[in-house]
């Protein structure tokens, strides 16, 4: 398969902080429309991987291509976001002082330049889209509440809603079900699977039940590089994986 057909292409990406190698020649390929689960022990480089993809951290060496042609290593976060890469953080980060509605309005796909936002007023389609997302994320009753007053689970959902509003080609989701009840976890899995139809998704997760629920290809990271890749059952049977991660 040529790199042109990939959505995201990482090759030989390395990052080190003060001598500590967070990523060690990491290579990873995501195809359009694919959902991928990334697992690995603490310090395996999962969050750093998200950081280099989204421009928060610059890799020391390596190539990162989006849609087979755009080099992400030279771009800043907003530019990467506008290419169509959305990110959900490990700790839910929503704009607490803004209402749920405003959070979604800020995320909605629309011109991002200051003067455009100064004169922006929501069109009928914009409002309809926000209503739709409110429905999907079951936040309609909360629309005028400040996001800071939501429960932990609701914030996670709002953040997923914000990703939907962004309408990215690739979603990076960091531990979406941390701190959720079993019921919420199950709903989140359904929600992500719905999204995966139209978008590519990378999910980083510790919760094995949740990963099994997703039922997608799994990549195991260890010490900053790929240890194993395949279905959950395949990697679960991998001796190395058991040693470094699952066995413990």
């Amino acid at each position: 398969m040529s790199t042109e057909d990939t959505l995201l292409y990482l090759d030989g990406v390395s990052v080190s902080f003060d001598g500590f190698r967070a990523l060690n020649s990491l290579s990873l390929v995501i195809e359009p429309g694919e959902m991928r689960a990334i697992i690995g022990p603490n310090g395996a480089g999962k969050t750093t991987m998200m950081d280099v993809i989204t421009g928060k951290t610059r890799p020391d060496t390596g190539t990162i291509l989006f849609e087979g042609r755009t080099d992400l290593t030279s771009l800043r976060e907003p530019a990467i976001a506008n290419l169509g890469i959305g990110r959900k953080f490990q700790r839910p980060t929503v704009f607490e002082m803004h209402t749920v509605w405003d959070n979604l309005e800020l995320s909605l796909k629309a011109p991002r330049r200051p003067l455009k936002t100064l004169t922006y007023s929501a069109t009928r389609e914009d409002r309809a889209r926000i209503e739709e997302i409110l429905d999907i994320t079951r936040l309609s009753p909360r629309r005028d509440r400040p996001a800071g007053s939501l429960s932990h689970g609701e914030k996670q959902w709002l953040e997923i809603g914000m990703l939907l509003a962004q309408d990215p080609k690739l979603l990076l989701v960091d531990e979406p079900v941390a701190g959720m009840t079993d019921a919420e976890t199950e709903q989140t899995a359904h929600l992500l699977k719905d999204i995966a139809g139209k978008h590519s998704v990378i999910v980083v997760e510790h919760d094995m039940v949740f990963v099994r629920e997703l039922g997608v290809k799994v990549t195991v990271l260890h010490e900053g590089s790929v240890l194993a890749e395949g279905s959950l059952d395949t990697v679960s049977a991998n001796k190395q994986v058991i040693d470094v991660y699952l066995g413990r």
Partner: protein
Amino acid sequence: MHRAFCWLLAAFLALAAPTAFAADLAPLVRGLGAGNYAETEKAIAGLAETGDPAVVPVIEALQAGDLHVRKSDGAVVVAKRAGNGYALTDPLTGGAIGEADRNAVEKIRINNALRRTISATLGALTLMSPDAGTRRQAAEAVFKSRDANALDALNTALAKESDERVRRAMTQARASVLLAGDAPDADKVAAVAVLQERGDQDARALLNGAANTGSDAVKDAATKAIASVEQRLALWGAAQNLWYGLSLGSVLLLAAIGLAVTFGVMGVINMAHGEMVMIGAYATFLVQEAFRQWAPGLFDLSILVALPVAFLVSGAVGVAIERSVIRWLYGRPLETLLATWGLSLALQQAVRSIFGPTNREVGAPSWMSGAFELGGLTITYGRLWIVVFAFLVFGALLVALRKTWFGLSIRAVTQNRSMANAMGVRTARVDALTFGLGSGIAGLAGVALSQIDNVSPNLGQGYIIDSFMVVVFGGVGNLWGTLVGALALGGVNKFLEPYAGAVLGKILVLIFIILFIQRRPRGLFALKGRAVEA
């Protein structure tokens, strides 16, 4: 009546005072007051010929403009102002010979030509002095006057001279005379070499003269020598700048080092830091007052006593501030900044109300006064001690943070508060003591700064911005960064000063820091990685 009395008295003294050789010299001395420059010059030459050291004070008095002619009898006397008139002394013996009215004496005038003769004569006379110091000074005097008349005396003295330093000075003086006169080229070229060796501003001036007027061979040698001297001078100039930079850097280090603890280690923005320095300076003032009052003889020790006092006073104020205000504001740096600014205003006003708005006098102990020469450098003891002190404080802090249990607690609390708490470290107490430590160090800085700056309520204001610049420039949370930052900023500042002037130099440094912070927002020695963002 009064005048007659004086006359009588003088006459009596003149009879009583003379000694054997003074009698021989007396006519020559009298000749100094003959009334015109030529006569005076002749008399000087006559005195010089005697080679008698007793002549030296006479000619020195002439040089200083103290030598007068008494109108009543034409006697040459040393007259010094005393009340409305003059007190008279005999130039040869130094014995008092009464007083005179202002109009009763007339000053012996000298012109520039005479002035030169005088210094050359003095030079020649003193070249034979038994005291090596005097001989060296005399050689220097000849070096400056370039008087050809002194050449013979110089040659004689050189032949006898055994002291190495005096010899060098005499050789240089001889070279200066030769170069200025009309000696053969070979001598002049040799003189150029000697002057090149000397290599200071005076030597350069002489060489410049030779390069413009001498024969081709001399010109050539002089031009080469000038290049070498200039290089050497530039080197010493750089060294002097380096010293000034080091000196300023150590002052910055002292002011910033406490901030490196409160801001760097704890992350607390203490805008009242400058006031901790100010309090330390006032503590020094109070300690000195106590010494002046009760133990003036031990005044030299006052600074040493002031150190622990200032540390404890500033530290106690710091602990009080931490417990009453700052502990409520942890995690809100901007609010901390504002509250501590308010405290700094109140502290300034408090000191102003107690001690008054004017500067307070803080004296320097004798061991911190004066200066010494090191090659082409002039170094004052006060600055030297401050440099030493700054490094001592820095070293002590480093050891305290690395090797003591208290330092371990501070680092534990900084790195993981809840874990430290769980391990039995009393975090609240560590916070208070850390802040107290930072403030106490500021107090120590105040002791040092009281020696070189005005002790006024505004003392701290002058240092607060600089201190923050140093800590931010060096990288927050890194003591070594603070050291490098302070020395670098001090050095840059002093190197810019000769070209840009003090104020513009400072502005340039501020602009440089503003640009630098934008390039490396976390300073010179920044922590990298996830810990920073967390």
